[in-house]
């Protein structure tokens, strides 16, 4: 018998093993839902899959009686706009401040302590302040994502810049590079893929802030809808919405990973 650490599943087995927990969860749900519905056909806690299908049909493919909108798509568009704006602004801030703090000792002296303190403020605790200062519209929700994510991105990226071997910056100087040239030709290209990796890591917190803000004050959005229908115990709407949010998060993560692989071929080719 070989050691456990040396026993590896092949590709097919890996796939099957990975699918196994999903199948089991699904089975458990089906059995539990069936049992509850047999006892009480009006049970709302664990709806049957036919109820999900009906809810999806209603939310995604039929216009809402009151607003005339296709709610799922309208909610998705509203949420993704907020998420995209928030993450976009946070990423830009992470890039600019992260690189400047990492490269320039004077900028580091001024901003590094400030960013360190800001990153420790729980963003949800200042959500009321955001609502008071930016109003209840889009701006406060976008700002929550920015404030929640940007300090992490800035700190992470500046740490990555400082991790870069000092020899590279010295070498660039012996090739006659100015500070600006070092930033655009040496630091920036090596930091972009790392920034994208950090953005991938901050997708989870970004969604958390988005859903929270929408739950508290919004008139549309995926988080708003979930919290709205909660009043009617509408699990047939909530669960498909959660699955949809998960799928969206997965797709964004996948696209960012693809972007890294496409735009920075040297990463993979150096790793070989």
């Amino acid at each position: 018998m070989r050691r456990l650490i040396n026993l590896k599943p092949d590709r097919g087995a890996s796939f099957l093993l990975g699918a196994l927990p999903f199948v089991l969860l699904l089975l458990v749900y089906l059995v539990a839902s069936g049992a509850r519905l047999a006892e009480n056909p009006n049970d709302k806690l664990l709806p049957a899959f036919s109820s999900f299908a009906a809810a999806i049909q209603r939310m995604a493919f039929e216009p809402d009686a009151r607003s005339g909108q296709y709610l799922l798509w309208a909610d998705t568009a509203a949420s993704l706009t907020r998420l995209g704006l928030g993450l976009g602004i946070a990423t830009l801030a992470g890039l600019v401040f992260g690189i400047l703090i990492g490269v320039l000792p004077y900028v580091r002296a001024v901003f590094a302590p400030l960013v360190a303190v800001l990153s420790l403020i729980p963003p949800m605790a200042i959500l009321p302040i955001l609502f008071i200062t930016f109003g209840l519209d889009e701006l406060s929700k976008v700002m929550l994502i920015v404030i929640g994510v940007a300090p992490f991105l800035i700190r992470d990226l500046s740490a990555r810049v400082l991790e870069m071997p000092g020899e590279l910056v010295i070498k660039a100087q012996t090739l006659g590079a100015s500070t600006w040239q070092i930033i655009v030709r040496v630091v920036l290209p090596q930091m972009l893929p790392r920034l994208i990796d950090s953005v991938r890591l901050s997708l989870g917190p970004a969604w958390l802030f988005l859903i929270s803000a929408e739950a508290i004050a919004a008139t549309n959005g995926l988080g708003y809808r979930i919290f709205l229908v909660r009043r009617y115990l509408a699990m047939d709407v909530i669960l498909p919405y959660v699955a949809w949010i998960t799928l969206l998060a997965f797709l964004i993560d996948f696209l960012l990973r693809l972007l890294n692989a496409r735009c920075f071929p040297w990463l993979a080719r150096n790793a070989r």
Partner: protein
Amino acid sequence: MSAVEIRNLWKEYGDQVVLERINLSVPSGEFCALIGPSGCGKTTFLRMMLGMEQPTRGTVTLDGAPLPKEPGPDRGVVFQRYSVFPHLTVLENVLLGLEFERSPLLGKLFGARRRASVPEANAVIEEVGLRDSVDKYPGELSGGMQQRLAIAQTLVRRPKVLLLDEPFGALDAGTKVQMYELVRRLWRENGMTVFMVTHDVKEGFALATRVLAFDKVRRDPQAPGAYGANITYDLPLNAKAERRDLMERLRVKSEAG
């Protein structure tokens, strides 16, 4: 021309004296090997030549002018590791020095201006024997090839002084011998002044025209940091033809001037 003059150079970190009373006069085109036990300050010396660190006392002049307080294109460097840019191909790595010089705003050349600079970069790549690898990334090259690339990258800016910090320390014996030949050839052809830090005494004698041994002359067992290292042996290798040629050229020049 690239003569280096060092007058009464000291380097201290707080109470710790690393180097003391260094006086050195290196004529243009000399190949100096800096040898000595680890911690004797030879790398510190190289870092001061590079401008990464400033001497506590004393002066260093290059062709009569004081050394700038930061690294610059007059002094090229090859480190033991991390000398090349991992996100650029071989060609891009070498082209980079020319792009820094010719494109102040973007540090990048495009179109016709790039095409005009590529042959220059390719010529240097050819000199170090990397012609078949122009489109590879450093991670795809062996250790020896990476050092060849680091040298090519430096040469493209035609530095007056070449500083080598244990450049062959991470290479295997066979590769080292090839690199010795390459470095000697490039040094003869380009005529720059070379300072090479090495812990390998044989390597120093094999390559250089002058060997500088660093060590502490005085020691105080109660205070190990009280005294710094000095150049204990300054050995011109006059038996070497290159050294004789060098001296001959200098003599002719001084008689003419």
